[in-house]
């Protein structure tokens, strides 16, 4: 800091108490809810044991919001929702209203202000959002742009509940994967070992730490042009990118070698089946801003196959477990390759050791 002022000692207040900010009806019935249903896409209806009822209208946002947008949401909340709103784990805004009659006008108002209403129940909710080129120091692609481009295409599926069950899409803008597992996940997949900028290594990187980070021991300390640097065994390297954050001269990103991959069948809930990881289905997709059409295409293909074929309550992964991977690849027209066969630790558990076969 340039100007030296006497710094204020922070009030280490920790997690903010939500009760002063919570909608009064929610506060009143805290822990005393009885059941819920859905009025229409985007509108939840919760009934408390006290008999109180609340309708929640859920609206999509761009997450990375300018203050004007946030104030617009506040105006709407002041007008319809007693000056309160909340955000969901997926950056949707939720407005709680105490009378059913308010829902339609509220929806209209939100739509007019450019906020789509939906994301509830068996719809496609907002895509989980990370940083990308806007802010991160290691991104292979953008995040805000990918999400915007895709949500434009999935608008109908956000505002309607026509899927067999909820669909939760995630993105990650580098292979570190700050985005979570997803019914469908769109992640960066590096395709080339890092190119080392040997001039910088000595200054910027703690070499033993970098060596230790590599999961396959592909990095060795080496002297290059008389300077201490690092060396990669390219045959061993699995292009994971783990060496890049602690050592930016290990350039793993390249405008053409940084590709996108699509994964499916990740699931967090414990409903019916246990939680699962998502599985790789397509890779090598071009990193093609501003609209990543090749990615959108595949996401939609998978989504519509699921929409058409899955049964009520089946999540994407559960649907595929029922119909089988052969049929998944058949109806999506995707290729099954040697790269689909896991070879990381514990890979044996992913092999089919049974005659449970799908024809």
């Amino acid at each position, binding site marked *: 800091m340039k100007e030296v002022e006497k710094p204020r*000692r922070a009030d*280490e207040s920790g*997690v903010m108490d939500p009760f002063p900010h919570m909608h009064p009806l929610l506060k009143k019935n805290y822990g005393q809810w009885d059941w819920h249903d859905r009025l229409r896409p985007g509108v939840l209806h*919760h009934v408390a044991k006290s008999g109180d009822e609340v309708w929640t209208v859920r609206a999509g946002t*761009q997450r990375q919001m300018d*203050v004007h947008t946030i104030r617009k949401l506040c105006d709407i909340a*002041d007008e319809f929702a007693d000056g309160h709103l909340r955000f969901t784990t997926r950056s949707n805004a939720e407005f709680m209203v105490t009378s059913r009659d308010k829902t339609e006008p509220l929806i209209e108002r939100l739509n007019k202000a450019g906020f789509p209403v939906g994301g509830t129940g068996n719809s496609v909710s907002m895509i989980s959002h990370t940083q990308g080129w806007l802010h991160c120091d290691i991104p292979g692609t953008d995040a805000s742009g990918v999400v915007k*481009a895709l949500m434009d295409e999935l608008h109908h599926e956000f505002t309607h509940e026509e899927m067999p069950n909820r669909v939760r899409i995630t993105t990650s803008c580098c292979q570190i994967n700050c985005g979570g597992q997803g019914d469908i996940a769109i992640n960066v997949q590096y395709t080339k070992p890092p190119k080392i900028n040997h001039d910088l290594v000595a200054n910027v990187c703690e070499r033993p*730490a970098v060596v230790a980070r590599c999961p396959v021991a592909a990095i060795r300390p080496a002297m290059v042009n008389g300077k201490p640097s690092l060396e990669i065994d390219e045959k061993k390297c699995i292009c994971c990118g*783990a060496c890049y954050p602690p050592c930016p001269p290990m350039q793993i990103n390249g405008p053409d070698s940084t590709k996108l991959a699509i994964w499916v069948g990740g699931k967090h809930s414990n409903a019916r089946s246990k939680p699962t990881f998502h599985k790789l289905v397509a890779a090598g997709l071009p990193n093609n801003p501003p609209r990543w059409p090749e990615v959108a295409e595949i996401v939609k293909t998978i989504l519509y196959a699921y929409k058409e074929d899955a049964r009520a309550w089946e999540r994407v992964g559960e649907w595929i477990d029922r119909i089988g991977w052969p049929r998944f690849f058949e109806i999506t027209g995707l290729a099954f390759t040697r790269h689909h066969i896991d070879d990381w630790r514990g890979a044996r558990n992913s092999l089919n050791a049974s005659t449970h076969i799908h024809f």
Partner: protein
Amino acid sequence: MAKKPHETPLLNELEHGPWPSFVAGLKKLASDNDKPYANMMKDLLGQLEHSYETRMGYWKGGTVSVFGYGGGVIPRFSEVAEDYPDSSEFHTLRVQPPAGLHYSTELLRNMCDIWEKHGSGLIALHGQSGDIMFQGCSSDNVQKAFDDLNAIGMDMGGAGPALRTAMSCVGHARCEQSCYDEVRAHRTIINGLLDEMHRPALPYKFKFKFSGCPNDCVNSIHRADFAVIGIWRDNIQVDQEKVKEHVARVGRKQMIDTVIANCPTRALSLNDDDTLDIDNSSCVRCMHCINVMTKALSPGKERGATILIGGKRSLKIGDQMGTVIIPFMPLETDEDFNRLYELAETVIEFFAESALEHERIGETIDRIGLANFLEGIGVDVDPNMVRHPRTSSYVRTDDWDEEAKKWFERKNAAIE
């Protein structure tokens, strides 16, 4: 005269379309020529457009913090500052929101005012870990922004090798499935361990997440080092009349196909009179039947939480989910919450002492084995911690009887 905006033909393509546009938002900020952030946002848009053109990122890290705290700020310095000088510093402040992400418009408006003054005008609601991210701040303004935010009751979140900002689902506030008071658990743990957040000294990051029931609306099993998930121990509450109504509405075949056949442990059977036969001792509390019949079924009355430890994403050893460490912990009384806090503290202490540098707790467990981890934190083994007992005969069992004795002693103690 106002600084001229960069041309952004690629980004402009994201300005339209039915979904709210962040580009429109950024451009609006860039055109707020009366605001301190306008030029910063012009150059930010320029650099972003440059990334879209070249498909490369141009930020690098550094060190920036606020007085008294070691973490919470993500510093960003531009690598192309010569071309985009006004956004050469574009740091993020991670700030903890109210638990459950409830806001009064007053709070939000205050946040906006502060960020308009000291920052870029760009706020992310919320980060994947649950922080409010005030994105885009010069090094000079970080302290000022924080001071103002702190003055309205907000505190910094986590970054670096530290306790991280936690998340809890809406739960008790609006959800009938919620099995414990998420806000209380969330605030008890994080506020008790706050020092670990503000002065990073752990081997690596450590995240808590709180879900009120096994639907796990905050993804805690995959994404939290320490997941607290609501559950119940007694029987599912059933209103058989409402079950019949459900069957009448959807039809028998549909009921069987979507509910009965979907129960993961065949705990459900439909009686010939359309009532439900629940074998609660086979039920694994998956929530499915309750989710389908929200009116007819509810979680039992004896409620608490399951604790899983070790979830994380892919770095170094591949993705890992948390493992059950405590199958059931009642969470109703003050003592219950104390016990939860003590467990959290013990785990953090163990982590601080035993993890290697840059190792997540899940990796530690993987390295030393679950049984040793349990011993380290003083928790007894329980069959609910495993899908099934060992299938490998490669184990040395000469102290079998001693180990068995511990189990029987515990069983007897539980009876007395």
